[in-house]
């Protein structure tokens, strides 16, 4: 029983004894060389990590072997570098050779070798951090910057070129957490710009050989940047103020010109508008008033007035040479007469027509419309037959304008009356002519072809003279002339040659319709100069009847012929003139279709170029 207990106790003791002692006696664990470093490429140190202890005091030994030889050396210095380290001094350090290093842990029970490590000192260089790092603040035109300078670690021999170091700086503000790293290369000084005014900066430097490891960061240097005024800010403030000022000015300008600008950018859209149209009426629903407003009084356009305005034309009649001078003398006088007569006329072409010597004072007589209208009533229907648009209005203004005896008019009322009477006569003549005309009238100016009306003792020339007196509407003139042609043709109704005979005209002679005889012949007489205005009309020293209108040529040329008037049939007012045979000659080419046979005198006609009688070709009337 006791023996069993003893055996059991012994057994237990044997079992638990090793546990009580911990790991117990075992060979040491395997140490490991964790790193070797050389600070300056002249010495180096290796550190190892011991393995498990094994329960027994363990000693370590480091053995190395150089590449070139097989000799194994032991670590010369175990203490300089601290525990578990081996320091190799200059004499023991060779560069460019591989060291094969092994650490051995030994205890009472055994020894354990670590894994060998090959190192080359050149590649394990880790320098010390740079020393004496100084940071100063330098001024650069009110923009300060940091100048960081340092020195290499005192052990590293950079001077001889044994070791070449490159540096790195990092900077950060005190409050921030991110560093700003700058690479400084091999230089030992560095500038840091773009500082914040009044901030505190932290600066650190480290270095590395061209082959090796980075050193540790140097100790932190603190620097405070003084407060400085940001010049850039002031510039920006100036710019802002300036631009605000300009903006204000622009706004003010815009406001001032807002209206015109609005017109420029957004032009008002013209709405539909009808003259005389009142929207309100439409809204109110009174259509009658509405549409009555639409009716324009002068629509359809009564062309008489307009045409009369347009037709600024006067006729020139060939007069005998004797009278020509007189005519010319009286020109100005006539103008004066005419002008007075024309005072009531329209400012438009009427004046021109009035001013013309030879023009019938139709315009002048415009004020006396009512008188004419009475006549017109008689001839209204007939007048309506008038082909020419002027006539259709019943106002044979153009006609009279053509026929108006210029020299007779004067400011004198008597003259006016006479002129009026003349005008009347003209009207009459005009109107009379028209209905009697058998042939169709020229519907349009310048189209007269047929109108071989009876011979009209009328000779007149459309004068192109005094264009300044005429209204500058040349086309109207032409129209007028054409109309004159037509009318002339219509006058001459007795004999209707195929074409009108162009009147024999003189450029400077003016003609006036003296009278209209019962046979609806218009007697023309040259404007007499020299005679008193009062007497001009009634006294015609030489009543000369001008050639009748033989007809209108196909080229719308009024063919006139001179005729001798034997008798004056006009009862009172008109003076009978003795028709004088006149010899006409044409100075230009004459295109005549026919020659009136009835007329004793056959005059050559001159055809105008544009349907009116060319005053260039004039007949020279023999003066009496």
């Amino acid at each position, binding site marked *: 029983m006791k023996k069993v207990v003893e055996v059991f106790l012994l057994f237990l003791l044997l079992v638990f004894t090793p546990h009580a002692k911990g790991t117990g006696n075992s060979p040491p664990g395997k140490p490991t060389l964790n790193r070797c470093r050389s600070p300056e*490429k*002249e010495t180096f140190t290796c550190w190892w990590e011991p393995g498990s202890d094994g329960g027994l005091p363990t000693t370590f030994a480091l053995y190395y072997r150089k*590449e*070139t030889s097989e000799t194994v050396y032991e670590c010369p210095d175990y203490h300089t570098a601290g525990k578990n380290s081996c320091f190799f001094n*200059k*004499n023991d*350090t*060779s*560069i*460019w*050779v*591989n060291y094969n290093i092994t650490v051995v842990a030994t205890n009472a029970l055994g020894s354990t070798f670590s894994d060998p*490590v*090959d190192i*080359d000192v*050149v590649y394990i260089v880790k320098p010390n951090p740079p020393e004496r790092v100084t940071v100063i603040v330098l001024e650069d035109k009110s923009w300060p910057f940091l100048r960081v300078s340092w020195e290499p670690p005192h052990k590293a*021999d950079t*001077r*001889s*070129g*044994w070791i*070449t170091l490159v540096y790195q700086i990092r900077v950060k503000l005190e409050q921030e957490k991110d560093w700003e790293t700058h690479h400084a290369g091999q230089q030992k000084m560095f500038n840091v710009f773009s500082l914040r005014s009044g901030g505190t900066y932290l600066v650190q430097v480290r270095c590395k050989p*061209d*082959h090796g490891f980075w050193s540790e960061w140097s100790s932190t240097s603190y620097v405070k940047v003084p407060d400085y005024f940001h010049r850039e800010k002031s510039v920006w403030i100036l710019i802002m103020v300036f631009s605000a000022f300009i903006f204000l000015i622009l706004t003010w300008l815009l406001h001032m010109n807002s209206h015109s600008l609005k017109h420029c950018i957004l032009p008002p859209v013209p709405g539909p508008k009808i003259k005389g149209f009142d929207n309100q009426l439409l809204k109110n629903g009174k259509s009658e008033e509405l549409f009555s407003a639409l009716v324009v009084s002068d629509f359809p356009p009564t062309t008489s007035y307009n045409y009369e305005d347009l037709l600024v034309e006067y006729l020139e009649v060939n007069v005998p040479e004797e009278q020509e001078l007189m005519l010319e003398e009286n020109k100005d006088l006539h103008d004066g007469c005419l002008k007075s007569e024309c005072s009531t006329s329209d400012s438009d072409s009427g004046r021109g027509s009035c001013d013309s010597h030879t023009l019938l004072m139709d315009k002048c007589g415009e004020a006396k419309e009512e008188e004419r209208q009475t006549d017109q009533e008689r001839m209204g229907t007939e007048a309506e037959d008038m082909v020419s648009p002027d006539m259709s209005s019943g106002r044979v203004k153009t006609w009279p304008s053509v026929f108006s005896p210029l020299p007779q008019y004067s400011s004198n009322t008597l003259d006016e009356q006479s002129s009026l009477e003349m005008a009347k006569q003209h009207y009459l003549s005009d109107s009379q002519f028209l209905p009697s005309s058998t042939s169709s009238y020229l519907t349009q100016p310048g189209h007269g072809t047929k109108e071989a009306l009876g011979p009209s003792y009328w000779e007149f020339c459309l004068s192109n003279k005094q264009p300044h007196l005429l209204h500058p509407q040349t086309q109207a003139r032409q129209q007028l002339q054409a109309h004159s042609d037509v009318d002339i043709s219509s006058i001459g109704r007795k004999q209707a040659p195929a074409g009108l005979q162009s009147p024999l005209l003189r450029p400077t002679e003016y003609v006036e319709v003296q009278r209209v005889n019962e046979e609806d012949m218009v007697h023309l007489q040259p404007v007499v100069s020299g005679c008193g205005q009062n007497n001009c009309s009634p006294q015609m020293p030489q009543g000369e009847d001008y050639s009748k209108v033989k007809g209108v040529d196909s080229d719308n040329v009024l063919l006139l012929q001179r005729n001798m008037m034997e008798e004056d049939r006009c009862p009172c007012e008109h003076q009978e003139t003795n028709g004088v045979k006149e010899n006409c000659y044409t100075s230009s080419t004459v295109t005549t279709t026919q020659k009136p046979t009835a007329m004793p005198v056959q005059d050559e006609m001159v055809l105008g170029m544009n349907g009116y009688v060319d005053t260039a070709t004039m007949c020279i009337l023999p003066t009496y």
Partner: protein
Amino acid sequence: MHIMTVKQLGVWAILLWPYLLTVSIPLDCREEQSSLSRCPSISQEKLLDRVIQHAELIYRVSEESCSLFEEMFVPFPLQLQRNQAGYACITKALPIPSSKSEIQQISDKWLLHSVLMLVQSWIEPLVYLQTTMDRYDGAPEMLLNKTKWVSEKLISLEQGVVVLIKKMLDEGMMTTTYSEQGLFQYDVPPEMLESVMRDYTILSCFKKDAHKMEILLKLLKCRQTDTYNCA
């Protein structure tokens, strides 16, 4: 890090390009008979500076090539064991001082000659390296270009050192002539891993030797400027 060094390399290349050209031009014009040719003469200090810069650049490029090659072709476990395959550096036999104290003891002449020896011994292996690199599948263009560039520049470096020796030591030297026969001429291409390891060894050894050249030249420069304080 890699990209940065590439950029730096590019900057170096741009900066040193004219220097390299100058180094390649024969600088000693006293031998020239023709009077028309304008030989640029360069001072000794400038020449030494340029040679040093040249060596620095070569070292940088070789370092990049080696790490590139190591990443691509060398299996990870073998990366730390540079001499595992047993290929020692070809320049092992050269009597190059291996510590600073030793270097301090040798003369200028010996420094220059050491550098020249190193340069001349590496010209051929680099040429050989190019041919073997072409055989690798998927070798990046950059790696091939770098090795090609290095081998070319090494020749320029040699010329510069020769001129330097002539200037400093007044000795005439012969530049190496390229010979077809090389140490590494193999009829049968070895297997892949072996080839890789050998090339890897070549690259790393060259990298080390490039660093040697650089250090030696720098020390020489220091001696020229400041005789007493240099190592």
